């Protein structure tokens, strides 16, 4: 397997002089193409900071991030925006849909920005909407649909450009358990059928159990890494809970 994402000694510091706060330090790992990786850790451990840095929304203070063969640390703001457009997809906890656009238009948006021809846009939107089961909702506005449907829309938007890497930040955080399960199953299917590479931040052990590999971070550092291997999802879920209780914190969030 070729590694798609290489993270090398990444650190992130806030503040100046004596008042610096280290959010991330010395993080090194790799993600291979077609992997579904979870990032877990207690509140304040630096999960979201890590994701933001990897997603080029924030810049690291030290270290290198290489996606494909591009080193993000060397890029300027405008280049980063273009890079995001062409290579990355995002799913957020609060959906981040634009409420002045219909479901279809929300999904169209990244393609329109990438200047894909209209005919192709239509085909791709229909395909992805069918995959997430929102084909009937395309002409509705975000305020007319449920939270789960909104998150499917957001996921469709993230995936329609067929990005190299998909970042999901607590995608099930605002969903009821049924919608959460549906969404995670869709993501997992997509990962398997299309070999999409997904990196998901979550503090929910159930959501994490859909991943193949989980990185735990604590106080800004990588503390443990576990693989699902051949375990069933239930067994993996148990393992995750054990790790969480050994790390401390986070368990409260599960129960």
């Amino acid at each position: 397997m070729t590694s798609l994402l290489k993270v090398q000694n990444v650190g992130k510091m806030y503040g100046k002089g004596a008042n610096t706060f280290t959010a991330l330090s010395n993080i090194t790992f790799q993600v291979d193409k077609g992997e579904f990786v979870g990032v877990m850790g207690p509140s304040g451990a630096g999960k979201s900071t890590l994701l933001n840095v990897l997603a080029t929304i924030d810049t690291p203070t030290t270290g290198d991030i290489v996606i494909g063969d591009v080193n993000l640390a060397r890029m300027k703001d405008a280049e980063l925006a273009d890079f995001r457009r062409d290579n990355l997809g995002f799913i957020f906890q609060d959906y981040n849909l634009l409420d002045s656009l219909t479901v279809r238009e929300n999904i169209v948006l990244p393609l329109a920005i990438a200047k894909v021809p209209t005919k192709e846009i239509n085909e791709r939107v229909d395909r992805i909407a069918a995959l997430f089961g929102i084909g009937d909702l395309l002409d509705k506005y975000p305020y007319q649909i449920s939270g789960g449907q909104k998150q499917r829309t957001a996921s469709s938007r993230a995936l329609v450009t067929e990005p190299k890497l998909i970042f999901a930040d607590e995608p099930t955080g605002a969903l009821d358990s049924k919608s959460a399960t549906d969404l995670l199953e869709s993501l997992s299917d997509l990962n398997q059928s299309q070999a999409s590479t997904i990196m998901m931040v979550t503090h929910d052990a159930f959501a994490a159990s859909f991943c193949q590999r989980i990185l735990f971070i604590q106080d800004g550092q990588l503390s443990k890494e576990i693989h699902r291997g051949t375990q069933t999802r239930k067994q993996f879920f148990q393992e995750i809970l054990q790790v969480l209780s050994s790390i401390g914190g986070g368990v409260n969030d599960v129960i």
Partner: protein
Amino acid sequence: MTLFSLARKNIQRNLSNYFLYIASMVFSIVIYFTFVTLKYNEDISSVTGMSKQIKGLMSASSVVLLFFIIIFIAYSNSFFMKKRKKEVALYSLLGVRKQKIGLMLFFENLVIGLISLVLGIVIGFFMSKVLLTILVRLMGYEVVANLPFSSEAVLNTAGIFALLFLFTSLQGYRVIYQFKLIDLFHAEKQGEKIPRASFVAAILGTALIAFGYYTAAADIFTSSIWRLFTIIGTPLMVIGVTIAGTYLLFHSVSVFVLTALKKATSWSWKGLNLIGVSQLLYRIRANAKSLSIIAILSATTITAGGGVFGMYYNTEASVRQMLPNTFMWKGEPVEFSQENVLYNESLTAKSLRVDNEFAFFEYTLLKESDYNRLAKLQGKDRELQIADGSTILLDASYDERFSHDFTGEKFKLQNGDSFHVDEMYTDSVLNFIAAGTVLVVNDKEFAAANADDVKLQVVGMDNDLKQLNVSKEIYQQLSSDHQEGFSSVPQSYKDSIATVGSLLFVGSFLGLVFLASTGSIIYFKILTEAEEDQAKYAILNKIGVNSKQILKTVAGQVAVIFGAPLVVGIVHSSFALIAFSKLFNMNMTKPVILWMVAYSAIYGLYYIFTVRSFYKIVRQGAK
């Protein structure tokens, strides 16, 4: 910490937030104070002998101005209060009683009001000096009036604005009491609906405007619509129809067009077009009222300004049209300084009176040889050769709509003579005042005509507009019954320019105020929306839209919001000015275009300023 010191510290710390609000208050006060100062100023009225009409005009304008300032202040106050809702919510959350918060805001408003008032009056005092100089220049006087500090104006301004501030402070109180803590936690208004276009309203709007335009452009004297609604009713009807049409235009036609654009996916699904159109569609109906008001105000300003500027611009030409000679009078020649004199002729003409069933007219019978001599002196290269029994008519007041064209007809005189009118010209060689319409006949017919002789003196001077002293010199030497028939280019020019100049001043002044206020209203409105939209642009940034593209879509959206009312205003005023120029029979194309360009240029500055602030707000959201 006392409440007062809390309020004071509040202002000190949030100075940048307050700056815009204080600036708009100071602006209003400066404008009003300046205007009132000019109104109360004894100097201008005595020096220029300001006519009653202009005093009346100034009073009426100050009422309009006040009305406008009230709207403006109410607008900026509500914008300001919206910005501060979060702060109020925080106090409330911390357990400060509403009564106390209200009292604090009341104090705050009072302090701001007081500061603005002092600043406004001081700046206004200096401004009024500048403006007075401009006014005097425009009216064609060369005196420099000194402006005493007018306590009357200060009292007037302070009184009115104290009242206004009291009102806005109470408004602040009202906001506090209506405010519910839960509003703070409601993220934003969920699910505003996208408007649907009403086909009927769109058609009706277009039809109303088309009808208004058609009527305005129609010939006042032949149109059956004008006959039906009368000369006073029709303009009112046209204004009413146009205002209603404008509202429907922004309310429905805009939605219609934008929906169509959005549906044209080959265009809208390119880059950020989709965002731009959707944002506009999302907002435009809620803004229909403001946009219509701005369009109508722009139309009013451009029409009034363009009309007055057109008149100012045409003053010299219309004086010259009526008075081809610098001076003309009936009677004997008089002594006057001969410097700059181009010609000084005495001639004998005959005075005729023609009665018809409506009125009587003065006509002057002129010899062919005299005509040719004067025409040559005045630089006209027309030489007449008139047959016996024929005449050529010179009528400077000819207007094809009300005057009868005698060409080819018999022209009967009271004494029984009659001439065949070969030709008619609208430029004369004699001044219209005193001479009236001129009949030129050949010398033989002239000698035979049975009418009273009149002695005429015509003088042409170089640099004639500056010859006011010569004009007075001649006037004083004339006997009182000849003084009435004395016509003088410098004197007529001075009289017209004094009236039209002060009209121009009042017009441009009000125009500037309207412009500044409409610009600020859109500015406030768009920035409020920008703050609501911050999150949207942050999303766009996350999904990979670079800042250049964001600037482009922001500039485009703001351009539509700014441009639509401006274009509508300009088109409205063009039709109004067509009607106006027809009514006064003036060619105003050049001054009107100048005026429109000036208006659009200042408006454009507001646009640039707004785009910059919008972009800044949006970028802050992305961080």
